């Protein structure tokens, strides 16, 4: 539906001829969305005002939360929206804007910067500028014409880029042109905001269909670059992660953490009144919790590392019942265990502080664990201090668990690195390095003949892997090659060597009609890296 239609029918519906019921139902929805996609905050606030004045006029106002939300909240638009569609160039444009935004100091000539930009362009997509321009214009036209396009308002980043690029291309591609570009891109921020206002024509209504359209394309449109382009894949982390923080930030962070120390007394008070404390915010919170724990010298305390990969609920309960309370047996029934803990603690007249670092840890995410922890937290003599980091952590708890937990939320953003919680091995990048290291260490332990056979297979694979349906080295060919180099004397010896490789999961033998094939199970890139290291070490 067109937005103009909408607003017209809107005003019609608001007239008293219509039943108020219908009016309430239709009233706000479309308006909301076009206001929402105005992304300047002042606009949005004015939307709120409109809304409230509407409400007074309206006959049957839907009751809305009044005090729940305030103006300094994070806009929901920022956190919970449909994923906007992005193109290959968004990232590049962004970087361009950032690098351009660095105020050119007198020492830094624009030439240097443009050089960098060119380099960036070079590094990423190499589409000629006029082609990009053309496509962009086409897209914009499309967006403006068809009302049900699947481009969200938030991807209107196109428009400023267009202004960027058009000014860029209007100049010649010579150095002078580049200088002009520099000027425009320093003012890009301003232009961007102005252009935001203009994009109002490209209205966008959230429809459920759009979600499916967005997700229907199976094809991944990102570039095909891989990390193999980097020269040094197998870097080892030597430095402590703190080294990456700038000195000013380090001071500010320690100041920030200092302020959290002032909350400790309050936490004590709140724990005493039967609430439990939940800490959130980015950065490791271990340090803060640790300090809090140290203030309680006379209370028995249990520290649980929720991020510990093989943690079980049983560990925690055993620690309490057996180690602390000197009981011999942990019942399998949760209710019984809790009962025992509570009565024992009451008899001893002590309180138990349970500290859970990352109560949203992988091993604690099951409903059963959370129910058990909630039961534990609800005990009168158990006080819980827990931290969360994952963005979806609050989804772990339903209202019956929450009512047992009785959490008070505290924001203790610290920006400290997650030293223990998130070890650096994160993704394929590092995993490739790991494979390479493993390969190297296996290789080093081989006999010379076995090394030679391995090299033959690797070389063969590197030469031939581009063939379609590459199956591996035919065993016959491998045998003849190995015999030529005096690496093995019989088929049995060769097979013995191969068995060793197979045991290390380096290779696989595949049976085919025309004999067996041997294939290395590693990535080509890893193999290439491996041969490079061989050449480097000269073995």
């Amino acid at each position: 539906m067109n937005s103009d239609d909408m607003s017209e029918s809107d005003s019609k519906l608001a007239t008293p001829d219509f039943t108020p019921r219908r009016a309430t139902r239709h009233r706000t929805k479309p308006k909301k969305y076009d206001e929402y996609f105005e992304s300047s905050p002042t606009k949005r606030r004015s939307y709120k005002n409109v809304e409230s004045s509407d409400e007074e006029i309206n006959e049957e106002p839907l009751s809305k939360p009044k005090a729940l939300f305030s103006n300094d909240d994070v806009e929901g638009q920022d956190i919970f929206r449909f994923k906007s569609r992005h193109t290959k160039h968004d990232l590049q444009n962004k970087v361009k804007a950032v690098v351009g935004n660095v105020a050119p100091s007198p020492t830094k000539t624009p030439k240097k910067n443009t050089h960098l930009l060119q380099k960036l362009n070079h590094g990423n997509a190499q589409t000629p500028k006029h082609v990009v321009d053309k496509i962009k214009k086409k897209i914009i036209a499309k967006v403006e014409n068809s009302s049900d396009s699947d481009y969200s308002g938030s991807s209107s980043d196109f428009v400023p880029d267009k202004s960027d690029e058009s000014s860029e291309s209007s100049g010649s591609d010579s150095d002078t042109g580049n200088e002009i570009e520099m000027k425009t891109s320093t003012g890009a921020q301003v232009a961007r905001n102005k252009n935001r206002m203009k994009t109002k024509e490209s209205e966008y209504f959230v429809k459920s269909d759009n979600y499916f359209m967005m997700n229907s394309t199976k094809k991944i449109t990102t570039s095909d670059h891989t990390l193999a382009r980097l020269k040094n894949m197998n870097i080892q982390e030597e430095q402590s992660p703190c080294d990456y923080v700038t000195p000013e930030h380090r001071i500010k962070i320690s100041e920030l953490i200092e302020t959290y120390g002032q909350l400790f007394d309050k936490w004590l008070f709140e724990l005493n009144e039967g609430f439990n404390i939940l800490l959130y915010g980015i950065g490791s919170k271990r340090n803060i919790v640790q300090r809090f724990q140290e203030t309680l010298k006379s209370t028995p305390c249990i520290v649980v590392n929720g991020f510990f990969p093989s943690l079980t609920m049983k560990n925690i309960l055993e620690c309490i019942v057996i180690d602390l309370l000197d009981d011999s047996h942990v019942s399998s029934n949760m209710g019984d265990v809790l009962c025992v803990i509570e009565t024992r603690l009451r008899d001893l007249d002590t309180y138990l502080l349970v500290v859970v670092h990352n109560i949203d840890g992988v091993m604690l995410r099951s409903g059963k664990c959370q129910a058990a922890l909630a039961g534990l937290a609800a005990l009168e003599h158990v006080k819980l201090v827990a931290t969360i980091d994952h963005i979806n952590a609050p989804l772990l708890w339903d209202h019956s668990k929450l009512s047992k937990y009785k959490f008070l939320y505290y924001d203790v953003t610290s920006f400290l690195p997650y030293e223990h919680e998130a070890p650096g091995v994160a993704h394929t990048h590092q995993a490739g390095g790991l494979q390479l290291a493993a390969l190297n260490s296996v290789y080093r332990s081989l006999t010379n003949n076995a090394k030679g056979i391995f090299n033959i297979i690797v070389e063969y694979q590197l030469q031939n892997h581009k063939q379609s349906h590459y199956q591996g080295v035919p065993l016959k060919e491998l045998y003849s090659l190995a015999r030529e180099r005096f690496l093995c004397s019989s088929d049995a010896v060769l097979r013995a060597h191969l068995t060793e490789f197979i045991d290390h999961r380096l290779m696989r033998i595949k049976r085919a009609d025309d004999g067996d094939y041997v294939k290395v199970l590693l990535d080509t890139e890893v193999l290439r890296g491996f041969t490079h290291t061989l050449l480097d070490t000269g073995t």
Partner: protein
Amino acid sequence: MESTVSVSKGVFLFCNGFNKTKQTKKKTKRNPFEALFTNEPWYTTYKCNWERIENQIKDLQNNTYSFLVNDIVNYVKSCEHDEYNTHEGIIPSATLLTGVNQPDHFNQFVILINKIREDVTPHVALVNSQDAQTLKTLVENVVWQLIRGQDVLLKKNFLYYSDEMDYKPKLKKSQCTMRSLLNWYKNKYVDVSPRKSKHSQQRTLVIILPDFESFNSNVLQDFVMIISSYSSLPVVLIFGVATSVSALHKSFPYHVSSKLLIRVFHSHPSPVYMNQVLENIFLTHKSPFHLSGKAFELLTDVFLFYDFSVTGLIQSIKYCMMEHYYGDNIKTLCCSQDQIDSAIANLSSDDLESIRQLLSFRPFLEVQDCQTKIGLFEDDNFFREVLSKEMHKLHDYIHSFYLCVRLLFNFVKDLPKNIFGKTIREIYAKCSMEHITSTQPFKDCMQLISFQSQLKLVDNIKNALKEINSLIKIDSTKPLRSTPTKNNINVAANELGINFSKTIRVHMMTFLRQIENANSESTVFSSEADTEINMETENVPASRYKLKEKLLRATRVEKIHSEFELIRSRFVSYLEEILSKGLQPPHKQTFNEIMFFGDVASVRKQIVGSPRGALHTALSNPAHYLQCSCCNIQSTDSIMASMPDVCIAYKLHRECGKHINVYDWLQAFTAVVHPEPDIPTDDDTKIQLRFQRAVAELQFLGFIKSSKRKTDHVMRLTW
């Protein structure tokens, strides 16, 4: 820190001098959580006030549930008397429709159990769904609790624990089967000596399953079938159902439900209960602590939009109260009226100084003359005197404020359109935010009242009188405060408080009498006019035009004000007058900070919490937390090289679609962090490491996950 990091352990114990065998010297032990505060005056005041409120809540709960509980108990009793046991194998059962806010119902069931124990039978078992995952555990739990009878109390009953629990169970849980139950029952009741064999000795066994929907329906079916086969045991089942009776029918097929004799009981919906709690406990002048309009709205919003849990609401109010009192000795003044003077006497001069700092003290100060001003600042004793006077005034104000809120509610509640809402809490929220009598909606209301019929008005006034009377009755039990003798500061002191309500009562009574007496004349007039018109329209049936004209003429005729109308308008203006006097918003009062809690912002963060929002803010605008000079940005979209690595990586990842090419991401990161064209390789590795760490952190936070669909790609998981 290192003591709690290990590759083989995830749980660490710090005994901190905890001695397991320490049973003897109980006296020396102190609660370390409380130790810091026990001697603080604010803490004692808080403790005492909260205990009072808690007791009130408990009483209220008993009252509200008593009706329902009595019904159920009567039903159980009637089952005992064999009314229903005529059919073999049919189990009488009660279904209690509780509503979805399950955590709240716990108290309800506790009261029910206590009542049943008192009145019917000591053998009650309550089994929650989490304790009965299988049929075996369910039967064990039920039998165990039934046999232990009196001496075992509810498991999971943390609030009302009793100390009589002995920890040497006479029979093991694994021995608890239906057969042992049967044997036990026979021994206890059937095979007793004939002198005891009265019929009433046969005690019923009550089994309560409070959260029916969470049970595994197969387990329940089997359980019901088993019980029905033990027909010699007089069992009564009570199910707590959160949704509707159909849940029962859905989980029980015919052959099971035919064994049950179901009777349904309805409990109050939770908003009703919430309104009761608020109106009877917190929105009265007796409550020592009051919520400002904004805080009040926050809490009711949390209730209405998040959890529907009255326990949660009470906890939030408790938290507000904690926040109100925490670490602030001047809040000791926030107590009942008869304790004020002693509380003021106990204040130190530092405390007095901080009272002088209160914002609401300023307007008060401005109207004083120079001499008193100096006196207020210099002379602590003089200040104490003034403070006491003002605090009493504040109490008087609160007294009449709540009276007026109730009066207003009484007159407004059944006006069309519900301008002020349908409950006292809504009116309270409105009144405490602004001076309501000067607003348009209030004027509309008054206008509507001035159109009300005589009958209605009489009714309303009678109700209002009832309200006032009950208020005065409560207060008259207490000795009245002696009027201040040297009252030269403010003469208005006498206008509010109990005297105020008394004058209102007198006026209301006169109005009531007048309106009732004014009855005859006006009704005669109106009925005559009506009949006249009716007659004529009947006479002239066809001409619509003429009718229209007639009606028009009728409107033009000058209305003669009847006596009733005159009195009514006088009454309305009187009402307006008293309300505008009584409904001054609290934030205009001197020293209101002491009695009213209004710091919504801080409480909201703790009660509601926004982990996601905090992450977003920290990542997109780190300067908000760090307060550093280097990272000030114009819009949240922009990136600066000086930001923490994880922020840069986060912002760059927001520019990508669902899939992110790690290589491109790294290049972009490098370009932002290190915008020099000739990069030495050594730095390059360093940047890679930084990037790696940032990506790992983002993965830990749940923004991305690694993807197998394309080499060196990660998936974006969020907004």
